């Protein structure tokens, strides 16, 4: 399974958030740092 490499460009993605607003990782480029969190299910 592919993994993200340290010190490499993080793969970009675009998906709607749960409110339906499209979020792209590249939206934050040049503006903010991003902590991307993949967690266990909520249940």
């Amino acid at each position, binding site marked *: *399974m*592919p*993994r*993200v*490499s*340290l*010190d*490499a*460009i*993080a*793969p*970009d*993605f675009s*998906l*709607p*958030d*749960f*409110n*339906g607003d499209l*979020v792209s*990782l*590249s939206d*934050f*480029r*040049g*503006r*903010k*740092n*991003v*902590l*991307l*969190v*993949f*967690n*266990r*299910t*909520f249940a």
Partner: protein
Amino acid sequence: MAQLRDDYSQFVDRDVEVVVVGPEDAAAFSKYWKAESLPFVGIPDPTYGVLKLYGQEINLFKLGRMPAQVLIDRAGVARFVHYGHSMQDIPKNDEVLALADEINSSQRPSA
């Protein structure tokens, strides 16, 4: 998730946006975000597109998924990558915040 919420202002202070990606649908996200008063971005990924892109381990036997965190700087570079080996294997916020300080001191946003 509650820990991230409690320390959220410290992430904001460091110009870090928290983006949570999970396989639940939008309704489940919405319900959970309201119940827990979560301030950050929540992205439903029911087709596992982003989860696969980032290689989150899917453990079919445990019917669960291992947590993962990636800290990405303003240039889009992954500066910290943590793939958990168990459900409890999540980096401490302090560790991530210290790294954010390091990133910020070496890389200022363009004015």
